[in-house]
């Protein structure tokens, strides 16, 4: 949809930034679906707070990407254009973020898996050669630290809870585990940028696995064996769910272009 730069490194940086922006936005949007439907008022507020945190992070990344694209193609592009006017095959979010929320256990586990990845990812990204990415990572890290703590505590309580709660979170692990590999299977733009403006995800994989295993163990849950992993999100190849998400999220801007508050 947007013109490519003659400089491959610039293109890669735009793609990298959009990958981070899209992952946060789609996850934030999914979590916002809980608004008014949380199991208790306190959890309704907690989950929507997390959704807002993620959308805030997404905005920071989108604003950066919009600035870069505007410079590359010489025509103004805004964060709203990127969020509301791109189609599914242009989105680069991790697949796990677009999966349906399911029940509370599944949502908690989605937040847990994503936020642990974001925690180690942003910790490394602070050392990026790109000052803007570094700054966004530093700001986001505090929010993500809380997301990890909150979701870990819920995983433990659901797992080490009643028979019913343990069953539900065990099912959620079965459903979501095949989507946790994508985070550590870098695509071309990630490989091109690693250890300069981007990070090397293989350097955080062990930390991720250790943390996830520790929490699941305390929750008296099983850590699944290595299994086949779904991929494609970062290349714009998505599940059937993303189309529906975008149809809802983008409807207003597409039906009434340029609409403002």
């Amino acid at each position: 949809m947007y013109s490519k730069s003659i400089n491959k490194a610039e293109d890669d940086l735009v793609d990298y930034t959009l990958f981070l922006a899209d992952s946060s936005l789609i996850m934030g949007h999914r979590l916002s679906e809980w608004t008014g439907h949380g199991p208790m008022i306190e959890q309704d507020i907690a989950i929507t707070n997390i959704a807002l945190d993620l959308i805030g992070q997404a905005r920071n990344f989108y604003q950066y990407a919009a600035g870069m694209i505007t410079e590359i193609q010489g025509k103004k592009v805004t964060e709203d254009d990127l969020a509301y006017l791109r189609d599914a095959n242009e989105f680069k979010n991790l697949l796990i973020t677009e999966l349906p929320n399911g029940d509370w256990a599944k949502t908690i586990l989605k937040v847990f898996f994503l936020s642990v990845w974001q925690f180690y990812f942003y910790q490394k990204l602070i050392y990026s050669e790109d000052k803007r990415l570094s700054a966004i990572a530093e700001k986001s890290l505090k929010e993500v630290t809380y997301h990890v703590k909150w979701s870990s505590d819920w995983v433990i309580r659901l797992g080490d809870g009643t028979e019913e709660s343990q069953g539900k979170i065990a099912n959620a692990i079965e459903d979501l585990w095949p989507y946790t590999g994508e985070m550590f299977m870098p695509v071309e733009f990630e490989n091109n940028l690693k250890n300069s403006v981007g990070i090397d995800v293989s350097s955080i994989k062990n930390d991720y696995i250790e943390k996830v295993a520790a929490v699941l163990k305390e929750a008296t849950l099983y850590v699944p064996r290595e299994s086949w992993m779904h991929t494609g999100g970062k290349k714009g190849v998505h599940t059937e769910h993303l189309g529906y998400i975008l149809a809802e999220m983008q409807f207003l801007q597409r039906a009434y272009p340029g609409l403002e508050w």
Partner: protein
Amino acid sequence: MNNQSEPLWEVFIRSKQGLDHKHVGSLHAADAKMAIENARDVYTRRMEGVSIWVVESKYIHSTNPDESESFFDPANDKVYRHPTFYDLPNELKYM
């Protein structure tokens, strides 16, 4: 959620400039850790505070409004209990 598994907790928050924790409301939670996280999510969204105390409501004991008269009225007219009979030098006027 029934009340057995989700007791009620009273929440006290100390603001950034404050010295004491003030009562801001209550919430339900299964245990102390959840109560603190819920309090953070519900009662500190707009930077209301930098420290949270939570106490299970059942551990807070209070005076009985029916006994208010005998409990508090007698203190109302005992002027000799107040330290107001000293002549303070001007330098200490705003103590």
